[in-house]
């Protein structure tokens, strides 16, 4: 479970309620969560924002359809020039220590977060209203304020993160264990669980919830375990350091994604032909191709093939398996690829987490990552064709070869309820406040 997963510990609005099943949820109990990635617990709860979503909340949040929804802010207005924004804070919200949420208490954390991205940001507090001002237009401020890094929280000598979220920190051992307790006075309704214990686990999978990273041995799970997979939330792709269009086109034709999906992801992943997954863009199927090794061989017959190193992340057995498979496919086409963990390879296997359900926002972010931010200017969220054309242009360069989309996969003990329903609300956040357990 990557850091992004910790951005998934978010709150849900009581207005939208809990998604429940035929059996009503039961209050009480402790949910144990085992994670395979210690880096998530290593962060200070407030340092990176990854853990803040369960503990501290943002002014707004991105809903399941990518639409910005109110959270700590119930209303907002913006000036036409997008330089001045006014947010009305939700009333009757308190921090975990009982301090009421108002503009004065919210402003410092908000300003600190905004300053990291916008050096010219100023925040003015007045009652329940926050005025955010910039020297330059910031039309996508709402998207920024939906990110966990902009959560509103306070700190004191004993508690590094005092938020307004459904859970409060009761104990924290950096890199080892985090214990959360239900915040009884949470404005969105007290969570079902009494407490959550998150710890760095082993492969034994004894906790109520444990992540099953791809490539780990954890795919063999205890009997009775339910497996839950999120929608595709990570793109695994090949990035070329130097565009060699013909060679990369040949490589692209040689790669057979089906075995990677069927075997290496145990059919939990999904073949990726475009940058954005089908569920996000709706048009990813247009990029679909079939492997054509004969054509790949034809393309390279006149080429003097260089030695190709494929760099994959060290300590990532899934990436290693994918890299080996890519090398095997390439070999069938007469291209020799050597997987390595050393940096500086001609090709790099990357794993990019997707962060938003908004296709335009996500594509802009990925284009920027790929160094093609100039193409983001043509994106119009209301016109999916513009997104399609931008992706098409990027893929035609063959500088990036999408391979597979991966979901987050968790094993759930039988006593865990409403996990699946709770996660439907937001594909990029784990909503633990609506989860309940047998006792």
């Amino acid at each position, binding site marked *: 479970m990557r850091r992004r997963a910790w951005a998934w510990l978010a709150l849900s609005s009581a207005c939208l309620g809990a998604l429940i099943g035929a059996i009503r949820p039961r209050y009480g109990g402790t949910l144990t969560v085992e994670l395979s990635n210690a880096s998530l617990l290593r962060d200070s709860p407030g340092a990176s924002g990854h853990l803040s979503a369960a503990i501290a909340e943002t002014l707004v949040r991105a809903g399941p359809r990518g639409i910005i929804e109110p959270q700590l802010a119930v209303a907002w207005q913006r000036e036409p020039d997008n330089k001045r924004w006014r947010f009305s804070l939700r009333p009757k919200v308190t921090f975990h220590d009982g301090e009421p949420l108002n503009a004065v208490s919210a402003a410092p954390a908000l300003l600190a977060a905004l300053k990291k991205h916008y050096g010219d940001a100023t925040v003015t507090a007045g009652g329940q209203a926050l005025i955010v001002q910039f020297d330059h237009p910031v039309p996508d401020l709402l998207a920024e304020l939906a990110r966990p890094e902009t959560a509103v929280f306070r700190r004191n000598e004993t508690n590094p993160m005092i938020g307004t979220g459904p859970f409060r920190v009761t104990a924290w051992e950096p890199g080892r264990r985090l214990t959360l307790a239900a915040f009884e006075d949470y404005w969105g309704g007290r969570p079902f669980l009494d407490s959550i214990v998150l710890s760095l686990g082993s492969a034994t999978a004894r906790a109520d919830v444990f992540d099953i990273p791809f490539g780990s041995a954890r795919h063999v799970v205890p009997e009775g375990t339910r497996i839950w997979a999120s929608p595709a939330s990570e793109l695994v792709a090949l990035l070329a350091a130097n565009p060699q269009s013909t060679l990369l086109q040949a490589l692209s034709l040689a790669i057979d994604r089906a*075995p990677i999906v*069927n*075997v290496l992801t145990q059919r939990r992943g999904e073949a990726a032909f475009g940058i954005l997954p089908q569920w996000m863009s709706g048009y990813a199927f247009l990029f679909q191709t079939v492997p054509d090794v004969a054509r790949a061989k034809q393309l390279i017959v006149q080429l003097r093939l260089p030695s190709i190193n494929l760099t994959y992340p060290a300590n990532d057995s899934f990436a290693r398996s994918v890299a*080996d498979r890519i*090398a*095997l496919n390439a070999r069938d086409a007469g291209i020799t690829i050597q997987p390595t963990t050393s940096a500086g390879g001609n090709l790099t296997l990357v794993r990019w987490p997707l962060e938003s359900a908004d296709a335009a926002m996500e594509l802009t972010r990925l284009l920027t990552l790929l160094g093609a931010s100039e193409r983001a200017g043509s994106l119009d969220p209301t016109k999916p064709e513009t997104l399609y054309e931008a992706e098409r242009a990027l893929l035609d360069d063959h500088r990036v070869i999408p391979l597979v989309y991966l979901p987050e996969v968790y094993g759930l003990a039988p006593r865990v309820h409403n996990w699946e329903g709770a996660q439907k609300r937001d594909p990029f956040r784990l909503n633990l406040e609506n989860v309940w357990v047998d006792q």
Partner: protein
Amino acid sequence: MSFRTKVFLSITTTVVITVWIVASVVSTLVTSSFERQDTQRTAALVSQFRSEFERRSAEVERRIDAVANSDPVQRLAVNLGASKTDTAQYYDQALALAKEQSLNFLELVGPDGSIISSAEWPARFGYKENWLLQPIDWKSQGVFLQRAQLADGPALALITVRTLNAGDGLLYIAGGQRLDKAFLDSLSPAPGMNIRLIRDLDAPARSDTADSKLADDLIQDVRARPHELSLTGPDLTLTAIPLLGRDKQLLAILMVENSRAELANLKTYIQGTAWIAGSAGVMLGLAFSFWAASRVTQPLLALAANVRDVASGKWNARARIDSTDEVGQLAQDFNQMTEQLVEQRDRMIQAERVAAWRELARRLAHELKNPLFPLQITIENLQRARQASPAQFDEVFHESTSTLLAELDNLKTIVGRFSDFARMPAPHLEPVDLNQVVGEVAKLFDAQLDALDRPRIAKILQLDDNLPNVSADPEQIRRALRNLVLNALDAMPKGGTLTLRTQRLDGPVESKVALEVSDTGQGLTPEECARLFTPYYTTKEHGTGLGLAIVQSVVSDHKGTITVRSEPGKGATFRIELPA
């Protein structure tokens, strides 16, 4: 060749030959012993290899059977049969099973030949292993060698296959262990042995060293006809054992290298020792020869020197050898001999001197008698004439005084000759062209040679054009040459041929000039030759007998030598050699 040299050579030769023979024999024995040992060691190693091979094969079979009987594989077979299983979930099963059973290779292959799981190359799932689909009883095939494909290249493996029923088809479990360096390390080659497993038979030949060329040649031979083969090179012996696969195809070659370094070292050691022994023998021989020489040769050489002294005329040479052995005895005998020789020589000299005085007296008497008799007659005539016929006395006086004066002149001449011989002067040396002298002297005698009152004598001049000048007194040389020519003419009363010859003699140290006067007269006997140069000795009925003595004296004064070569009836050749 000196005695020391002979002794040295004989000792040295004996030692060297002995050492060489011993060394060769030892070297040959050692070589054959080593080669025998190499063969035995190689055979032992091959036997060990085969035993290990069999042991590993049994182990592979046991472990693959364990894999086939394991729960996960049994479950897989059942599920495959029920056609309801997703084989993807077994993708990493082989790796876990392989680790459990310590196998390097393990593949679970479905009924259609597709790899379900591969331990050695996990990424190969889905690829086909069509060789498994052959309709054969895999269990009866036992364990066999196979070339296996890995991500980093081919490898050689001991493989066995088991099958499980999976519905209408079979689940194949193929696995084994790698035949690699670790396998070879389990063998225990003796020191000096090395084992290599050559898997890449198509690798280009490396002929940069003799050993690598040898190996390449061996590999090529074995590839052409797979059989066990050995080749011996300068530094090692290679034995190649072909490793065949299931279909008897050559998969690899087990190369056993026996280093000949030890043998080479030993041979070098033997040679070195032989050289040392030989050298010691030579030194010993040298030392012994010196010792022997000092004990034997030195006295003998000293003795030889004494003999040479005696030969050169020092008859009073004494051998100073104090040993009491044979050499000492020889020296004593030598000394005794020289004493006797000296005594004999002295007696002989005395006798020759007496003989020479007698000869001289005889000659003198003979010479003087002739002129003296007429003198006597004349004086008697005078006496008679005074007494008889005083008138005829004046006439008789004048006639007789003329005769007396003539005979007195004759006496003076004879005395003058003797006086000349006794009072020959030292030569005035100057560069003289002998050819010119010879020509002048020959011209002097032209008239005599062509005289009508005697048989004709031909004159032949054979003068060497490259004759160097000699340092000589030209007058004395002429005189000596005139004497020789006169003698030659006198030796040919009935005519003949007078040959005057000059010759350049280039010797190792100095050049000489030879002057020969040859006649075709009656020749000389050896005794005459021996006494020829004795003063007053002559074979002629008249003459003083000083001519050749004068010649010898002149030659001796010019530090030359004169010899005579003659046989009766064949003329004589007088040869003068003078230093150039």
